[in-house]
């Protein structure tokens, strides 16, 4: 069992998401940065879809009441084990009574903490991913007790040599495909999308990231249609909105671009004020 002593800014349990329920209006949810979350799981020898803790910017304080192994990947938020700094992307054994905490923000925005066997929170519609109205709790809270498998088995050291792709955190380039309404944009608008830098606006969360720079726009709303995480919508006022994992299943704004899956992961590590560029994949 893991006891939450402090919940942190925005901490949830997520797996790879809830599939097969979009026709009932249920968002996919799931880890924002699937690359980093999978890294933490793989390093521990877990299946990629194992439920991990998604930590945003400011981390929680956790008390472990059993023996297990953990691995932290993604954003570097200066993790500590009993106040001693620990490495990220490295499986670490913890024992009963140990306390994991986080400190200064070094890089990235979302950090993943995996435990051997995963967090055994309630499974709703085939997924552990927390979402308001689907799981009992949308967020981790203080004094919550999370069930995990106690294990005395030593972790598999052979994975310890996996190399992390550092450009995942550094690159500003997001690769996109044309969206269903891309061809309705003027040539000038299309060129602007790929020639300028965009800044992440303060309106960024698990549902969507807004971009600060508007794109002059005369496109009308469309008849409500289907959207996916990674869809870039253009509002009548010219705002560009990039839908993320918790996005609604349908939307009425023109869908001008669609992010590559890997670029959704990259964007999940960006936050307010960061700069990005869009590159078209044919």
């Amino acid at each position, binding site marked *: 069992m893991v006891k939450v002593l402090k919940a942190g800014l925005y901490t949830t349990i997520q797996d790879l998401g809830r599939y097969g329920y979009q026709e009932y209006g249920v968002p996919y949810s799931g880890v924002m940065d699937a690359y980093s979350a999978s890294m933490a799981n793989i390093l521990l020898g877990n299946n990629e879809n194992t439920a991990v803790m998604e930590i945003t910017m400011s981390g929680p304080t956790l008390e472990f009441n059993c023996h297990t192994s953990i691995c932290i990947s993604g954003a570097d938020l200066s993790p500590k084990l009993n106040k001693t700094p620990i490495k990220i992307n490295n499986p670490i054994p913890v024992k009963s009574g140990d306390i994991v905490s986080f400190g200064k923000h070094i890089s990235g925005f979302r950090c993943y903490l995996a435990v051997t066997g995963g967090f055994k929170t309630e499974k709703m519609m085939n997924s552990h991913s927390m979402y308001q109205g689907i799981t009992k709790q949308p967020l981790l809270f203080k004094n919550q007790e999370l069930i995990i498998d106690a294990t005395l088995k030593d972790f598999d050291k052979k994975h310890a040599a996996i190399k992390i792709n550092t450009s995942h955190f550094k690159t500003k380039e997001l690769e996109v495909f044309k969206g269903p309404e891309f061809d309705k944009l003027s040539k000038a608008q299309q060129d602007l999308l790929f020639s300028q830098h965009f800044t992440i606006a303060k309106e960024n969360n698990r549902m969507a990231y807004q971009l600060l720079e508007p794109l002059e726009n005369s496109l009308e709303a469309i*008849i409500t249609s*289907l959207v996916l995480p990674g869809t870039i919508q253009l509002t009548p006022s010219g705002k560009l909105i990039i839908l993320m994992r918790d996005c609604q299943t349908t939307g009425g704004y023109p869908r001008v671009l669609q992010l590559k899956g890997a670029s959704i992961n990259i964007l999940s590590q960006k936050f307010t004020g960061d700069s990005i560029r869009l590159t078209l994949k044919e």
Partner: protein
Amino acid sequence: MTYELRYKPYGERSILIEWPAVIDKNILSDIIRFKEKIQNSNIKHLVEIKNAYNSLLVVYDFYFVDFENEIKTLQELYNQITPDTKSILKQWKIPVCYDTLFAIDLEEMAFEKGLSKTSIITLHSQTVYTVYFIGFLPGFMYLGGLNEKLYTPRKATPRLKIEKGAVAIGGEQTGVYPSESPGGWNIIGNSPITFFNPKNDPPCFVNAGDTIVFEPISLKKYKDIKTLVDAGVYQLESEVVDG
């Protein structure tokens, strides 16, 4: 009848199929027919299929991308003549209490339109609505068929909190809020029914293509039904209609 469809790759693992951009019951029937054909086909690597007013999105497995080939398979499937299997569509009778306790915008709507509250309720409850799809919120039905006399612009400032079950009108649409949510529609009643329950599989009793009618009920009946719904023993009335 068949339509001229457009097939577009959507990201790395989905195909968007588009019908003419109009809201039309015949298009919905064609979309649902095609959706069922795909579901009953032996196309592999399908994750899910969802529809909206004039489109269908087919989502494949993460690692499976050969668009040209997939689109061809879908086109052949669409044009395949299959025995006319009528899908089982249901008509649901949804109890709604239009009491002033819930209908916080009814008075103003009646005043604006120069109609009595009773005639608004009558117009709203005498229509058979078609469920085009579920979206926006888990369990939120996009309904077609609202009487033109009831078209009402959305509120200039959305409310931060609309109660679960609120029956409302926004622009040319009417709907029921399946859960508490912010929203800008005009509220004219409340239904004691639960439209989305994550513990049920499927989580919604309604499917795209079904129809619903709103049945006005008294505040007393609302409370009785609510008690039964909360106890998990309420049986909603429905009948099978021709698909």
